[in-house]
């Protein structure tokens, strides 16, 4: 059984983000990039499935400019068997990514696609759901526990939802997106990093996969969130109600 994992190269979570002076985006030059933490969790889950004998192959897919190869190599160093790089310098929105993944699925024919629930740069939380929709596959998003039954070709997913935990059972092939508590991703060890250098990476372009990168979205402006104002100590309940009514206008 083959598993495909989509991984994204994003600004490292520990970096302090700055907005560009022209407000067209955030500064990415000279800024540390790494694999999206949720994608790491997704890859870790796929690797555990392979290690327990439930899957035979894990393929890591990334999309973007050539620097994405670093992230792909990290994925291979963690243990993925093969890599696929879809080379594109234009901005890729979730729908583009979902369409590309759908077309890749026709080539690779995996039984399971695992993605992070969202990327920490755009926080869209859309790609996994869109892929499932385009492929007409069942989806288990915000997974905090995944149990694969190979014979029955089913996967049981515990989903973290607002009300608590929802358990769904999906027939393969299916799409899973991972949430924080699913697992703790492994470190890429030095020997594995060296082995990763010789693992194969196949390259595609969006055109080869019949996907047109045409954007219906235009980023108008990116600004910093307003500075948090200092708290105010109120002297009485009446003053509190007055402020809630007249200043904050919430009652």
């Amino acid at each position: 059984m083959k598993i495909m994992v989509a991984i994204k190269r994003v600004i490292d979570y520990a970096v302090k983000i700055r907005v560009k002076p022209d407000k067209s985006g955030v500064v990415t030059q000279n800024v540390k990039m790494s694999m999206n933490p949720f994608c790491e969790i997704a890859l870790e889950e796929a690797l555990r499935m392979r290690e327990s004998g439930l899957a035979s192959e894990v393929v890591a897919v990334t999309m973007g400019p050539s620097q994405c190869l670093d992230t792909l190599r990290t994925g291979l160093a963690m243990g993925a068997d093969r890599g696929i790089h879809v080379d594109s310098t234009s901005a890729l929105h979730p729908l583009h990514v979902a369409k590309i993944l759908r077309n890749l699925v026709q080539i690779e024919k995996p039984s399971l696609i695992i993605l992070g629930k969202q990327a920490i740069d755009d926080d869209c939380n859309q790609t996994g759901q869109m892929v499932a929709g385009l492929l007409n596959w069942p989806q288990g998003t915000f997974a905090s526990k995944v149990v694969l039954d190979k014979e029955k070709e089913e996967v049981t997913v515990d989903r973290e939802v607002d009300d608590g935990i929802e358990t769904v059972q999906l027939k393969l092939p299916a799409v899973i997106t991972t949430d924080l508590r699913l697992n703790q991703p492994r470190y890429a060890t030095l020997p594995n990093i060296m082995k990763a250098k010789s693992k194969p990476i196949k390259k595609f372009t969006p055109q080869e996969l019949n996907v047109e990168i045409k954007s219906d979205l235009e980023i108008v402006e990116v600004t910093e969130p307003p500075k948090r104002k200092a708290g105010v100590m109120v002297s009485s309940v009446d003053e509190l109600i007055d402020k809630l009514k007249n200043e904050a206008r919430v009652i």
Partner: protein
Amino acid sequence: MLKFCSIFSKSKSKNPFLLRSRTKSTSRSQSSPAAYTFSRRIFPYSKHSSLLAPASLSRVPPSRSFATDSEARDSIEYDVVVVGAGPAGLSAAIRLKQLCHQKGADLSVCVVEKGAEVGAHIISGNVFEPRALDELLPQWKQEEAPINTPVSSDKFWFLTKNRAISLPSPFHNKGNYVISLSQLVRWLGAKAEELGVEIYPGFAASEILYDANNKVIGIGTNDMGIAKDGSKKEKFQRGVEVKGRITLLAEGCRGSLSEKIIGRYNLREKGGAEHQTYALGIKEVWEIDERKHQPGAVLHTLGWPLDHKTYGGSFLYHMKDNQISIGFVVALNYQNPFMNPYEEFQKFKHHPAIRPYLEGGTVIQYGARTLNEGGFQSIPYPVFPGGAIIGCSAGFLNVPKIKGAHTAMKSGMLAAEVTFGVLNEGLDMDMYWKALRNSWIWDELYKARNYRPAFEYGLIPGLALSGLEHYLLRGKHPFTLKHGKADHEATNAAQLHSPIQYPKADGVLSFDVPTSLHRSNTNHEHDQPPHLRLRDPKIPETVNLPVYAAPESRYCPARVYEYVADEHNQLKLQINAQNCLHCKACDIKDPKQNIEWTVPEGGGGPGYSVM
């Protein structure tokens, strides 16, 4: 070999006329590895020598205090292992590969780096002298090295509380460039990889590997995934052994492995060297109003806010893209335990001659690092069985010039050339010592040797001698001044001083430590054993706090050390190891040398990109 009589008295008076047996001559014997005849000192070392400090004399093998001794480690072998992907380490790696290409040889070179990426732990002023880079990669301009802002002006001010008095600049910065060393190192890393060097960021070399003959055969990386209590976490990974026929230590100032090696093989005594002395540099990169920005402008100041007894000053360099580097350096042999170098820096930014540059600007990044000030007198014998120490781990910074990157690079290149000879032609690694002494590094550092020690007598005598040196003597005097006490011994008891009141941060020009720390992109895996180890856990509360009023809570630029009241209302030391900037100030300045800086899990630490 010249022999001199010492008129050194046993007391702590600093007699500058101890004439040292180290000379500029290069006829040092290179045959015997155990060249203890090197130093013909007649009187024993003063008590101030760092030789006697427990840290450096330890012959105990590096501690492996947590589980996992029994589990075998993977072992990878290279011809050369370099610890640290900084200017020295990368220059050595590049030079090795260049020699391989030139001479048709093949050597495998591996560089391990504790930062999450190359350049993440690199921070420096920096006014760069391209002398070594011209030798290493003469095509650097065509190959788009990030060196593109030539020095356009060079100012030197003496500050009083309200005024800035312009003095003639002692620097000759024509032909130099204002750069971000972090960016340059990243470029060097790319060049090294192009030549076939294997660089592994995110891997911390935490121990030295020895064979049965006490020869260094490589390093071991940290185990990863150990919890705070020492148990193994789910994602536990055993470290690996990276073995090399030659190991080059390029960890920067006060390198943790380098210090152990220097102690184990007595390299300071062997080199006739004094103890190393240090300063703490704290730096911010600002994006300022473009009307105030003059690319290539270089400014240094002395004086306010420091007093006459404390050596230090500031720098303000204009890079490109409306960015400036502004920083403050305080020598760590300061006496007042209430001194807070970070707060001195914040205070300095409010000076009426400085604040106009910053008004209307924003801070992009913050960081701090110690640097060597010992110069010529403190260079240890840099060769040990199985390898050598290069760059600031040995200590080639030219203090009056405040430049160390060019000498670090050159030392790496020289070590590479000797290493190539050792591995291919059976030469002796001791040739590195000879190569250093025949190079322009030695020349430069010899000429610069008396500037800093002169300041032991105070600011005015120091300036006077600097003037004399600069205009008249230019290093041609028959004496070599000694350093004063070791930095950690220079701190007076708190009762001799009164607390310094520092102004509160205004949030516009000056900031509190947590705000600044956030700008350093520092992060460590939270659930790991603290990498700052106390040799005796009782000393903070029995010595540091009552006698010295807890200086570590003031000199640490990352607020790692805090005294917090426990449930019995007793103040106890709390170590916020996650904040650590890897500057090594605590390892240097702790009065009882009780704090040992060890390397945390690889990939942790600051994330400098424009420093």
